[in-house]
């Protein structure tokens, strides 16, 4: 009892600060997540109560579902390309803009795809990647003599993934970019002054020895959210290639999940997909955290 008192005296302030978050987070996030994990061991069509089926969904998913394997393959290709590319591009953009004039205007232009709704986005890419010779991409390639007949960007299985990757990179750098920009503002100016006294001469040296180490927390944040976003690719894939996409060339894990959850109403199976996706993201996230985690963790 005495020890309990001491414990409370020492920590009550911390728990008090955490309380509002914990209450809301538990109610609206943790409970639903556990509920969904529970559903993954059931058959649930959203009308009748779920029936327990053990590991059945997982066995079906991993052993019998060929389309899921295609989805995993597509998602991995997508994630391996857009994850790192988007990450480095958005960091470079933030770093460059931070040293430029007219920062605010450039930053707005850079964040614009995140502001404008998905509808506007899909029309924009349609104008560019239209499958006839009027599409800007085809038009330019034909004029340059690189191709002879227009490429069917969003129906030809050979090109679907490429188009999805280009559009995703173009549309989704905003988040990482803003966080990095804010992170750059949070590096104390004294570090740079001290650095120049210690003999740092070039921008590149400054970046490697001062900026990057000081920004570790933001770099970790950017990396984790980039992984989550890359593995969660869905909206753009569907608006480019449709659902189901030709030959499943644009079928991603989340597209598979969405298909089962909201088209076939097999919520249990969809939840199993979500759990598998979660495990993949989590393992990669752990690796990245080990690489980038700050010293006191």
């Amino acid at each position, binding site marked *: 009892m005495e020890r309990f008192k001491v414990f409370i005296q020492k920590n009550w302030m*911390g728990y008090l600060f955490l309380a*509002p978050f914990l209450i809301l987070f538990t109610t609206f996030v943790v409970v639903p997540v556990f509920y969904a994990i529970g559903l993954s061991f059931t058959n649930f069509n959203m009308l009748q109560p779920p029936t327990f089926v053990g590991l059945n969904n997982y066995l079906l998913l991993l052993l019998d579902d060929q389309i899921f394997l295609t989805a995993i393959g597509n998602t991995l290709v997508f994630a391996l390309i857009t994850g790192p590319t988007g990450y480095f591009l958005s960091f470079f953009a933030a770093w460059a803009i931070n040293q430029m004039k007219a920062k605010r205007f450039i930053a*707005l232009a850079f964040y614009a795809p995140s502001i404008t709704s998905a509808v506007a986005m899909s029309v924009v890419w349609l104008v560019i990647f239209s499958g006839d010779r009027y599409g800007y991409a085809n038009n330019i390639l034909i004029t340059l003599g690189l191709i002879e007949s227009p490429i069917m960007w969003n129906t030809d299985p050979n090109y679907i993934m490429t188009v999805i990757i280009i559009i995703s990179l173009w549309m989704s750098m905003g988040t990482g970019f803003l966080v990095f920009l804010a992170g750059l503002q949070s590096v104390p100016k004294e570090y740079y002054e001290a650095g120049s006294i210690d003999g740092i001469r070039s921008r590149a040296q400054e970046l490697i020895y001062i900026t990057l180490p000081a920004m570790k927390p933001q770099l970790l944040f950017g990396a*984790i959210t980039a992984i989550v976003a890359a593995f969660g690719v869905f909206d753009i894939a569907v608006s480019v290639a449709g659902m189901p996409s030709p030959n499943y060339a644009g079928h991603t894990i989340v597209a598979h999940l969405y298909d089962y959850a*909201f088209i076939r109403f097999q919520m249990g199976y969809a939840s199993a997909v979500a759990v598998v996706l*979660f495990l993949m993201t989590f393992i990669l996230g752990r690796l990245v955290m080990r690489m980038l985690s700050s010293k006191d963790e």
Partner: protein
Amino acid sequence: MIKIKWFRGQWLHITAGKTLMYAFMLVMVAFTSLPLIFLVNTAFKPMEELFLFPPRFFVMRPVLTNFTDLVFVVSSAAVPFTRFFFNSLFVTVSIVFLTVLVSSLGAYALVKFKPPGATAIFSIVIMALMFSPHVTRIPTYMVVNSLGLINTYWALILPNIAVAFNIFLMKQFMEQYPNELIEAARIDGAREFKIFWSLVMPSMAPAWSTLIVFTFVTNWNDFFSPLIYVTSQAMRTLPLALQVIGGGPAGMTVGRAGAVAAATLLMTIPTVITFTVMQGRVMETMVHSGIKG
């Protein structure tokens, strides 16, 4: 290196590297600003240009009919449009304010108080971030329903406050705040909440300004929450009301496409304002000094 006299007597130094950087950024910016430019252009397109095939990016003969159409559609609706605007603004501003407060308090506790269990809580936050939101929608609906919140503002606000992404963001920035400054303030006899609110939070301006932008954009455009949590017309927010203007869930009946284009443009204005104000804050705040104190 070339030197050019810039205004206010400053010198502009132009080097090869800088020129290259500006050129590269110009290309990037040209690409990323396309959706915004498109949105502006579309709002001023006359009907025949809206349905032009092949579609054109830029408006050829700008007109204001889309806006007058919008006024007509809006004024003939059963629920006054100002109501949707109020709903959107009230819900979004409430979420923004509460999530900044709740996430910052939580993040501060995780990083600076570190009560037993803090590491576990943080791990759960990260795991939640990684769990696909699609499958948790229905369980979340069940929770909201069982709390009796359906068709209230609470249903639109409460589930969007404690977001894993938000506390993760605040926590990462809080980690950089020097413990020595907090210790010093404690020795001076400052109370814990005062240290948090008047010492730590002001220097977290880049973090919470960014969080405000993210939260505002996400919730202002959120179409899903009002769709499932709200049943009465008068509780709808703008994104949902926009579909009503469009004349149905497909979004685009031919006759109303112009009004929708105008409304879509008007809807982005508050986000652009929020972004500009908040980014101005981020870029102009003097960086807090970690060492001098």
